[in-house]
Structure formats: C-alpha cells, structure tokens
C-alpha cells in the first residue's frame, strides 16, 4: 500500500473499534458495580447506611436474621458470630457482634467482606456500624469482639422471612519477623 493504511477509512475505524472495546472491558468493572448497587443483585452491600433520612410510613413486621461466618483459605483466625440468629422488627436498630481470635504470634491485618442472602434482600439490610467498613488488626493471640449495628427496612419483600448475613474473613497481611522487630 503506497498511500499507507492510515489513509484507509475502514482500517482507521476498525482500529478505533478495537481500542474502544479494550477500554470497554475495563468500563465493565464500574458498570457492573453500579448495576449491582442499583438493583441490589449479588448480595453486595455498600458502605454505611443513612438511617435518619428514612420516612416511617411503613408497617413493622418480624424478620429472622441468621449470622454466618467463613474464614477464607487457611487464615489462622477463629471467627464466629456471638449469636447465630436474632428476631428483629423491621426499621428497629439491632446490635450483635462477631468474635475473632488471632491464633498466631504475629500481627494480622484482616478484611471482612459481607454478603446477604437472598441477594435481593441486600438493599434492605442497612448497616449503621460494622467491622467490615474498614480493615481490622489483631495483635498476636488477641481476641476482639466486633460490633455490628443494623436494621432491616420495611421495604423488604413480603416473601422474605429469613435473611442470612454472612461475613467472609480474608487475611490481608501478616507481620513477618515480629521477634526481630522487638529486638530493635
């Protein structure tokens, strides 16, 4: 091609399409998160809830909340809910806690990811305070009690009487060579 392919309209527009689709694949990440946030699919929960903006024109009913815990992989942590289930009234704030113990002689940084099942109830379970909002640190052999304050709003579908609130604990970081650090 003596005049060069960049003068060819079809070629240039196809090159543009390829570039667009490459960046589109990265756009899928925020699009997916926004989609899940708007629809409440996938049981994903986003940040603390603004409790006081709610209007209170809806009726109250009782819902059974069950608490689950999972330790991901082989994280050396004992992690369990202090209560396995709780009968709560909708729109009433309840409090419970999870207990975590570090089984090593090293400082651990942990992140805990919540999930709600059934997925469509995720937008109705509102957390005001949660240990999952930030990373947690456990000193060697330390046990901590982590509080959760939440309410279930009354827009919860009438078909749902049992809601599972599940936390998965991930080990983010382990402080290596703690003994050496003390010597310094």
């Amino acid at each position, binding site marked *: *091609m003596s005049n060069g*392919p960049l003068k*060819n309209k*079809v*070629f240039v527009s*196809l*090159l543009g*399409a*390829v*570039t*667009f*689709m*490459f*960046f*589109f*694949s*990265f756009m*899928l*990440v925020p699009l*997916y*998160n926004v989609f*899940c946030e708007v*629809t409440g*699919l*996938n*049981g*994903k929960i986003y940040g603390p809830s603004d409790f006081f903006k709610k209007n209170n024109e809806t009726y109250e009913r009782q819902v059974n909340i069950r608490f689950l815990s999972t330790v*991901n992989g082989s994280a050396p942590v004992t992690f369990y809910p202090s209560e396995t289930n709780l009968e709560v009234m909708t729109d009433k704030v309840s409090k419970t806690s999870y207990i975590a113990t570090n089984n090593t002689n090293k400082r651990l940084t942990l*992140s805990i*990811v919540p999930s709600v099942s059934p*997925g*469509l109830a995720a937008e109705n379970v509102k957390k005001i305070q949660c240990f999952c909002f930030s990373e947690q640190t456990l000193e060697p052999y330390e046990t901590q009690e982590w509080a959760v304050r939440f309410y279930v709003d009354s827009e919860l579908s009438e078909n749902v009487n049992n809601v599972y609130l599940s936390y*998965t604990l*991930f*080990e*983010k970081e382990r402080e290596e060579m703690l003994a050496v650090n003390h010597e310094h």
Partner: protein
Amino acid sequence: MSAVVENHNHHDDHHHGPKKGIMRWLTTTNHKDIGTLYLWFSFAAFLLGGAFAMGIRAELFEPGLQLMDPIRYNQLVTMHGLIMIFGGVMPAFVGLANWLIPLQIGAPDMAMPRMNNLSFWLLPTAFAILLSTAFMEGGMPGFGWTFYAPLSTNYPNVAYFVFAIHIMGASSIMGSINVIVTIMNMRAPGMTLMKMPLFVWSWLITAYLLIAVMPVLAGAVTMLLMDAYFGTSFFDAAGGGDPVLFQHVFWFFGHPEVYIMILPAFGITSHIISTFSRKPLFGHSSMVYAMVSIAVLSFVVWAHHMFTVGMPLVAELFFMWATMLIAIPTGVKVFNWCATIFKGSITYETPMLFSIAFVVLFTIGGFSGLMLAITPADFQYHDTYFVVAHFHYVLVPGAVFSIMAAVYYWLPKWTGNMYDEKMGRLHFWLSFAGVNITFFPQHFVGLAGMPRRYADYALQFAEWNAVSSVGAFLFGLSQLLFLYIVVKTVFAGKKATPQVWDGADGLEWTVDSPAPYHTFDVPPKVK
C-alpha cells in the same frame, strides 16, 4: 454468478516468483502462502491438541488414577482447550480466509499483505510462550481454558498464559482488520455485497465479532495479570472485587467466540452442499440475514454459561429466552441446506459427506444446546459431561468437520492434484464413527451426573467412559490418515481441471489448478 476472466498467463514473466527456501515462508506477503502457513500451523495444533485429548481419554478409560496425577490431568484439559480453540479451529478458518477471500471476490491479494505476514508469525510465538511453561517449575496452566479468577490468579506461570493470549489476540485482531478492509475495498467490479459468496459473508461477520470481543479478552487477561502481580482486586473478594464479575467479562467475550468458531463453517457448508446437489443455494439472502442475526444475538446471551452463580429470576429468564431465540436463525440455515439438497442431483464425494454429517451432527449439538438453555434444567446439567458432549458436538463434527470438508473441497484448487477419493471416504467414515462413539455416550454419563474436569469418576460411569475412550482413539488415529491423504495430494495425484467439481460456482474455479501464485491482477467483471 458468472464472470469474464481475461487470460494473463503471458504476463507471468512480469511477476517475481516466490523466494527459495525458508525465506519464502518467513517473509512472504502472498495470501496463498500465508493461507498455507495458517493451515499447516492449525493442522500441527490439531494433532498436538489431539495428543492431549488422547492423554485425557486414556486416563478416563477406567476409574481411578492410572497414568497421571490430577494436576497433570487438569493441565492436559486446559491445554487441549486452548490449543484446539486458539491454535486449531481459529487459525484454520483464518487460513481458509486467506486462501479463499481474495480468490472469491476477484482481488489480487489481501489489503494489507505485510500485516498479514505479521499476524501469522505472531501465532507460533504465542504458542511457544504458552508451551514453554511445560518445561518450567509449576508447569502448564491447569485452570481450564476459561481461566476463572481467583483460581487462575493464584496459579504459577499465569503471566506466560496472559502474554500468550495477548499475542494471539493481537494476531486475530490484525487478521480480522485485514479481512474487513479487503472485503470492503477490493471486491471485483460488479460484485455487490449481496452477490458475495457466503464464505466471504460469513467471514465478514466473523471478523466484526472478533474485533468486538478480542479486545475484551485482552482486557480480561490484563485485569487477571494485575490481580496476580500488581496487587489490584478486580476479581478478589478480599479487596472488594467480585469473582462473578470475571465470569461476566469472560463470557461477554466467550459467547461471541463460540460463533466465531462456527460462522465460517456455515459459509463453507453452504458452498459444498450447493455444489454437490448441483443446485444454487436455497435462500442466499436469508442465509446472510440469519448469520447477521446470530452475530447480533451472540452479544446478549453470555450469562447462560453462568445460570448457577445466583442471578435474579428476571436475568435468568432474559438469558434463557434470548438464547432460545438463536435457534430461529440457526433453524433457517438448516432448513435452507435441506431445501438445497431437496430434489438435487446429489453425489457423495468426501466434502459432501463431511458437510451432510455437519448438518446432522451440528443440529444434534444445537438441540442439546437448547436443552442447556432451559434455566431450571441447566442447574442439573451445569458442569456435567452433558455440557462436554454438547460443545464437542458443535465443535468437532461442527467446526472441525467443516474445515475438513473445506480442505477436501479446495485442495485440488490449492495443489492442482485430486485427492484419493477412496481414502477420503474411508477417512470420513472412520471420523464419523469415532466422533459419535466418543461424544454420544457423554450425554448419558452427563445426565446421570458425572461432573466435568475430574481425573477420576464414580464406578457407575465406567462402561460408557470406556466406550468413549475407544471412540476417541479411533477418531485420533484416523486423523493420521487425513495427514497422509493431504501430504500425498500435495505431491501427487490425478491432475485437477480449473473447474474441479462440475457443480461448483464462483470466481475461484475460473483460475487454473493449482491457482497461480498471482491471480486477478486485472479484476474480473462480475455480472
């Protein structure tokens, strides 16, 4: 269509012939040479991927672990998938495109010959990188060709896999751009879009699909690489990412990819069935519209691969109906092929045998696909051998049979020699028996609950797995016969006429056999 071709043999001395020796193949910009390179590369990949499949079936011949540990087994499964898809089927179709598109539209070559050379030579590079992991500590990738995160991000040598996929993707994208630019700009005068042969049409649509989804695959593996080595958490729940997102991104590429591997087969089958029925194809335009509809629908059905991840009812219903909708344009195509055969003067040469088997067996694969599309039933079938049977029915007697049919059909045009018809038919019948003995029993064990991707299985599946393995060895061995037939035809055989098949229609049959190194220096006129 009919064409007026001027004879330009006396111009031959103006051309530079091909270079001698290895440099001819390394530096060639000739579409016929590059087509040949692609086809031989895909044949080699087909045999290598087939060898891996033989390893898989040998291990599954009886329950228990006999030949390899589960890690090695998973590596074989993964590499079998990657090699067959990215090294076997796709390069074979690109090779056919290189050989046939310029000949069928009356163009002298592809639009960008140097890029064409680059896009071929990237492929051996990519596979060298991918296969080099076999000799490394940690070994070959073993996370399945779908490389679901976070399994794949925690795997050794994943960077080699990622770079190999990047390079293969670049090769495919360049190939597709070349195909589209060639078709858009270099058709012979008088060849309107609707007059284009169906193989060219099928490749035009395929090339658009590739341009839309290969960059998405590149994005997916890039995110994977960043998760594995640069501390991001696109797919890692611990850092706020989501493993299900990976499946969405992957299958947004993966489902159109499925049609990338079957649309050119539709084009090939249309040519061959029309030739050996000695009738023009029934419903040329409806074939084009059907392929366009399939291509468009392929972008909105991806989540049927992941019905069990926990989607809401509305999404499950949407993806179920959208998937079933694809049966309509596909049904149109199958109907048109049957209507072409109807009342034709049929002869059963090897290409026709492969094409008829394609229509029948691909339709069986399509029906099991419809069964899988039914969401509530899919919860039962998901990740069982029923799925394995389904996609092998659409890929082996689907895509692979159509490639074999194409090779037999156009081989006389490429080499100037007729292949051995008796041997060709023997190859067909052995392959036909082998494929069905291998994959049909997998429907049964799948429905009975045998899961995919395991090196071992429960005792009640033993008989059908033994049958399946015997069929696989038969199919595998009969491909050596195919290799023998092709090599023999390259070097010897009855001389072919330019027309080759008496029912064949199209510009490629107006040039000599073998096709001269340079064709259509002066574009033919299409009426």
